[in-house]
């Protein structure tokens, strides 16, 4: 179980002392497969590692730094394109961490983090104007597939993905943090109102809402692919704030309850606490937060750690279960059946 090696190395960098060559190979393969190699490289900075490992980690740090720079530039271009609209533009996920990382925190999720597409959140009533402004500034639709397009516009929490014709980078424009069909209904206007301005005009969600979003994305929306990375984000966000603010966990759980996300946030905290030792406090009053694992958490842990020494995913049946679960969470069952039928006819397979 190479994912367990990865979790141990992230949690306690000194634990890599004495790893065999085969274990290093397994650790590196798992870290690459989970897209946590950059994070691992920063965690192991200054830790004694075999000579053959050093350049691998140096390359990963180099990639992560360039990745962050490119992501921030993409955010800058989106900000330039949307500036005339005078609306709040909120960076989400990886780019938000990179931008917030500039405000500095001792354990920032930005350190070495993989960043894929640019995710932004804008007010829903500005969506048409945002779409027009982006198309005008060189972004284009990725795939003109009528079913997918209709599906996104009708049911999802984002526009169909756009890609910039010169820079070849994708942007996902969200107007809320969960699909409209999902059961929890976060109060997105309140989240936008509580967002924090960055130098340069862009914004990020408040710390509590960043954790809520990461947990919602991990548990209420996704199929747990990339779950270890999402949980590491949550671990870093909670660790950074815990030092700065008394009772952060309490204010986090209050916000989670207010946005209908108490269950996924509590589960994310239990899993992060168990895997990474995230310093969160248990409460019984005024809000109950019990950090002991529940039986169902074991299933999540098995899924999160399902990777062998060659970086391959294991537990195929369990992964399939989570894939179906992720759709159940997003859509009422009849709608799900219709969606899966359409997808399978086109040869899509999970994993």
């Amino acid at each position, binding site marked *: 179980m190479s994912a367990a090696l990865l979790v141990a190395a992230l949690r306690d960098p000194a634990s890599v002392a004495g790893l065999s060559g085969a274990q290093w*190979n397994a650790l590196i393969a798992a870290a690459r497969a989970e897209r946590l190699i950059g994070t691992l490289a920063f965690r192991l900075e200054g830790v004694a590692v075999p000579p053959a490992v050093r350049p691998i980690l140096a*390359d990963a740090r180099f990639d992560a730094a360039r990745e962050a720079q490119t992501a921030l530039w993409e955010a800058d271009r989106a900000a330039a394109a949307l500036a005339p609209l005078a609306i709040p533009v909120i960076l989400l996920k990886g780019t938000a961490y990179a931008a917030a990382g500039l405000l500095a925190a001792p354990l920032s999720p930005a350190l070495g983090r993989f960043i894929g597409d640019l995710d932004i959140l804008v007010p829903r009533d500005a969506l048409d104007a945002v779409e027009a402004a982006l198309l005008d500034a060189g972004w284009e639709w990725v795939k003109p597939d009528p079913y997918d397009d209709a599906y996104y516009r009708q049911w999802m929490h984002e526009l169909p993905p756009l890609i910039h014709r010169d820079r070849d980078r994708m942007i996902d424009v969200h107007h809320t943090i969960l699909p409209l069909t999902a059961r929890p209904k976060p109060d997105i206007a309140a989240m936008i109102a509580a967002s924090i301005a960055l130098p340069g005009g862009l914004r990020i969600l408040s710390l509590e809402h960043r954790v809520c979003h990461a947990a919602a994305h991990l548990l209420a929306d996704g199929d747990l692919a990339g779950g270890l990375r999402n949980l590491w984000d949550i671990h870093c966000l909670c660790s950074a704030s815990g030092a700065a603010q008394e009772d952060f966990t309490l204010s986090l759980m209050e916000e989670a309850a207010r946005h209908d996300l108490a269950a996924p946030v509590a589960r994310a905290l239990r899993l992060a606490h168990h895997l990474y030792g995230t310093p969160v406090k248990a409460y019984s009053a005024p809000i109950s937060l019990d950090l002991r694992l529940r039986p169902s958490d074991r299933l999540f842990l098995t899924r999160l750690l399902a990777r062998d020494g060659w*970086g391959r995913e294991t537990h195929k049946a369990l992964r399939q279960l989570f894939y179906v679960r992720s759709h159940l969470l997003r859509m009422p069952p009849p709608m799900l059946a219709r969606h899966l039928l359409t997808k399978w006819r086109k040869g899509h397979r999970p994993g």
Partner: protein
Amino acid sequence: MKHRIALTIGPASFRIGAAWRAPVARLAALYHDYPAPPGGIADFTVRLDPVRPWRRYIRPSIHITGDHGLADAAPMALAHGLLAAEMGMNLQMALGWRRHLLLHAACVEKDGRALLMTGESGSGKSTLAAMLGERGWRFMGDEFALLDPATGAVHAFPRLISLKNSAIAAMEAQVADAARFGPLLRGTAKGDIRHLRPRADAIARMDRPATPALLLFPRYGQPVDIRPVDPGECFMRLTQASTNYTALGEAGFDCLSRFVQTIPAQAIDFPDGNSALALVDDLWNALR
């Protein structure tokens, strides 16, 4: 994985795992003289998995993947397993290598100075490098030339030479040692392919870099012609011939802009191998 091998090629090391014995046995025979990764720790993992679990046994079909993979990579027949492993290693280099600027180029060395040849598949660069490698030059690679951003030196990546179609018979006539050849792979996406292990000196000296001296853009199957290529065109063509130029950022820019400003470049057209060898001789001797 059930069948596995680990090996070092130039500055890079790989561990390759396969669901079948045959591709690993072929690799073991042809890469016999290549060292194991230092400390048993490889830079990259390559996996040859069945495309579906049952396809390990029924109409075996290989999915090439590893640390880096392509979502739309076409599956390959088990009979082409050696080619799949080679492609798997190339894929890791192309997508994951950061310690040098990677140029899609063949490279040979003489007296510490390197001749680089870049061009599309079918340009003749691979065959030309193989021929020069049997004629007093040290073969440094037929796929990637690795430029060191710190020194400007070129490093060798002398994996097996991938001979295609008519080049197979041409090299069979020039190389006496049959043990250096892999199996003839018929009907691949690029026609017939047969792998050739570089000469022993190319493997023994693969750690030694060389100073770039000449860049050629060869084109096979044309009447003889020589045309100088100016630095601007060179820069543009080499950025297109590099898989990691963008990933290296400013280091790649510095390395490549210095390269095109200091290394003379010529486009050469030739109808056959012998006229290519004569052209290379003339241009190389004219350097001094």
